[in-house]
């Protein structure tokens, strides 16, 4: 059962920012696929203010801004997985979005919600972090833009201030020639929370790796890139042996940063294999 809810339903960003300013403890409702489950765990006599932003049409857009693609936070996983701009520029974001939950969840869940919920197992952050994507946060006093990797600071914790609303996700287009991959490991083939996931973008020029980004979810306390692995690869020729070595580097980084945990005996060999496989896939999927 839900707690006592004061329900607010703004239709413009300005209206929403005023409501956020006046209701310091308000929760923001977008698709609700995470929030409603959380609310049902609260005591029923707790008072919760919900600001339902789903009717703010100015937050539903995907725009080509030249060097960037901008995405409104209310764009659903379903929309992202089918959008032609996204398929062209960031095909691994389409892959990640189509791997989330079930058709029902993909139709309701939003990219903004996926970022702001801060789950370490979320499926869009690895792609966004690999692309150095930014989020724009607005409040009555103004706006700021920060990297997704700086925005999610701990499991289920973000940099968002109570007064702020996420209004934009911005992705810089990569130059042509990159290969992309997104691999998710779940316990079943649908409606699966990722045990681990990984996004790779890699540019190979004249037989050597010129640029590579590797970002993993559920491997480190937050989704992050693995500089040790990326630096190791830079300037080298792609090969299975090389990718296996990088897998080892990432799995060692996991233990170094996250510590040795109950799940480490499983996760260590598996993340290593996932790194190798995602690099192989990225080489094979180069857009030339």
């Amino acid at each position, binding site marked *: *059962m839900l707690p006592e809810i004061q329900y607010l339903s703004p239709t413009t960003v300005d209206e929403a920012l005023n409501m956020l300013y006046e209701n310091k403890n308000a929760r923001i409702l977008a698709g609700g696929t995470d929030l409603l489950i959380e609310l049902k765990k609260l005591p029923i*006599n707790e008072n919760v203010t919900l600001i339902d932003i789903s009717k703010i049409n100015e937050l539903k857009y995907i725009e080509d801004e030249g060097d960037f693609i901008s995405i409104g936070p209310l764009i659903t996983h379903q929309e992202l997985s089918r959008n032609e701009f996204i398929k062209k520029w960031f095909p691994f974001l389409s892959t990640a979005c189509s791997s989330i939950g079930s058709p029902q969840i993909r139709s309701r869940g939003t990219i903004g919600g996926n970022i702001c919920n801060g789950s370490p197992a979320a499926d869009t952050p690895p792609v966004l972090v690999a692309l150095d994507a930014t989020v724009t946060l607005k409040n009555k006093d103004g706006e700021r833009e920060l990297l997704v990797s700086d925005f999610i600071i701990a499991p289920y914790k973000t940099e968002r201030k109570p007064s702020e609303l996420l209004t934009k996700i911005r992705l810089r287009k990569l130059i042509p020639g990159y290969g992309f991959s997104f691999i998710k490991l779940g316990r079943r083939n*649908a*409606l699966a929370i990722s045990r681990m996931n990984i996004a790779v973008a890699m540019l190979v020029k004249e037989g050597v790796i010129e640029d590579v980004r590797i970002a993993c979810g559920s491997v480190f306390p937050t989704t992050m890139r693995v500089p040790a692995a990326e630096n190791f690869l830079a300037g080298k020729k792609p090969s299975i042996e090389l990718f296996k070595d990088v897998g080892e580097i990432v799995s060692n980084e996991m233990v170094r940063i996250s510590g040795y945990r*109950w799940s480490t005996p499983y996760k260590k060999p598996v993340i290593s294999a*996932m790194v190798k496989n995602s690099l192989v896939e990225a080489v094979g999927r180069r857009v030339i």
Partner: protein
Amino acid sequence: MSAWAVGKRTPRIDSIGKVTGKAIYADDIKLPGMLYGKVVRTKYPHAKILNIDISEAKRVKGVEAVLTAKDIPGVNRVGVAITKDQPIIADDKVRYMGDALAIIAAHDLRTAQFAASLIKVEYEVLPVIEDPEEALFEASVKIHDKGNLICHHKVRKGNIDAGFSEADIIVERKFETQMVEHSYIEPESAIAEPLDDGGVRVFGCMQNIYTSRRILAQVLNLPMNKVVCVQTTMGGSFGGKDDAMNILACRVALLALATGKPVKITYTRDESMIDSYKRHPYKMYYRVGLKNDGTITAAEIKIYANGGAYASMSEFVTWRSVVHATGPYRIPNVSTDIYAAYTNLNYTGAMRGFGSPQIALAYETLMDECAEKLGIHPYEIRKKNLLRTGDTTATGQVLDGKVSLNEVVDAVCEASDFINKYTEYKNNRARPGIRKRGIGLACSYRGVSLGAEGVDYGTCFLKLEEDGTLIISIGITDMGQGARTVQAQFAAEILGLTLDRISVLDINTSRAPDSGPTVASRGTLISGNAITNAAQKIRRNLELACEQLIGKTSSGFIFENNMIINPENGRAVSIKDAAAKAIKMRLPIHAEGFYPAPQTSWDEATGQGLAYFTYVYGANVAEVEVDMETGKVNVLKVWASHEVGKAVNPEGVEGQIYGGIAMGLGLGILEEFEFKNGVPQTTNFDEYLIPTSMDIPEIECRIVENPDPIGPFGAKSIGEPTNELAAPAILNAIFNATGKRISETPANLEVVLLGHKLKR
């Protein structure tokens, strides 16, 4: 026998109401002035209750009743099998997290839930036991006064020492299975309404409403004729809506009688998961002796069943296990012991398969291990040892009916090309590759109906109306398995009616006689025989009427398509007119049907006897792909063959097979109801993972029909045998792919990759 209705592919007669949303489920019912109930549960899995203070909760505006164990007029220890040990509301102790401390009725659910938060309980916390072997240690804390042993069954056949001394190899293996939730889509729901005669009527999704009524009468201290149970449309059960629903029925009835108003309780999914019983986790120690040619000489088995907090069906579940523990094999020397023990986990009871899926996991994966050790093909080792007609089972029963094991095993092996693929995939093991294929076989035999568990009979009432329509009233219920459709088919077959002329009544304990519980895959056989018996009586009277209407015949009238035909002169009359004529002749066109099942026998001291009056036989082959780097198993296809006697509704048989395999897949590789110090951790479907449509493979069915003289038109059963073979077939396929033997379930990512579970 000419088949007019029996054996035809028949759409379910209840399907339109369900798919159009018109079917009325318990939670859809709203009665005038109805209150909403709430169960207040314990905070600790094992504790003495020192004091319960309900005063503050009672003062909340809108609360009409707050009841504790003290307010129960009758008995407060109930059970569905032999031991009666479960309280409707806990009094002296709590023994698992589902135990109730109080029940509340209020004008709305929010008020009831708020009042629940005001109840203050003082506990003396006791140590928690999770493991059945540990529970039986002398020094372990006693969960019930009588100690922690629920029951011990045994089977003794031949001479076990002589058997092992004849063996060339002895294979030993420990197996562990997990706790599994039924996962019916409709959570428990019931509404009780006080009646003006002082009695009570309960609507709800009770699986076995006659058991519910018996328990209600005892708990409420009411005579049985003043307790009425009405079964609403069932949103699944799989054996799961017996004890938990009987107890919920008592809880709403207590509140209704205390307030004088109707009261409804519908559990949330989390409440359902915490409250309800599950499938028993088994710890199994198997030791098998074989000759070099694969002949089994002896089997020694010891099993510990985790019974959870209350006895429930443990006595019967483990009995079925002890009878079948050696699988469908001819073994001259057998010694089996099974113990069920109390723990502080959810109590465990009936679930589709009823003690057979666990043991099938053990004996069928062990057969493959023995085959591997002896260098024999898994197909060959089975063919060598499978029970044949005339063989003697582990319990000393001679199988004089047709034993169809060779047929079902050959059917799935041929359809799947098992013999060649097994060898090919085995040879692939050593080759490099991330994704490896494997194929696995499993087979079983299964006793039909209750067997020596209890009295077994069926009864019904059939009423032909003057317009040629028919009403069937019977206590064997439809939980989604298709019972009503086959019941209508049996009546249609004998009376020549089309299915649109037949109604099967909703079940009301005051209006249909008890036919025993709808369990043990007994519905088709028991209700079919009772309906056949009644329909034949009506048919005889219609024939007498027809002799006057269309002349006598020595070759018998034909009943078909709502008409009765005299084949000798070609004259015909509608059933409607024949019914009208019979009424004029003062011949009854209604009848009671009765079917007493054949006798069974059991000697508890030796574990020998005629355990079941007939058996069914089945086999599955599963083909899988294993990701060697992650341990992820994809089941690619399952072939299933079941000998059912006669497939009354082949579409229904296939539906049972598809569903049984889906559940078997969950048991094999996905599902686990987990605890931390007795506290359930997986109380909703975000964490308790059942297979989705994306996980369930293509399934190919091969139905085998060897009509059984005991069954109606030869029909036996199908519901449960479908649920015991997918998991061992999948585990055998994983071994075929990887060369790694898995002896615990679920074979999840960690188990497949590392060979063992990881504990948090």
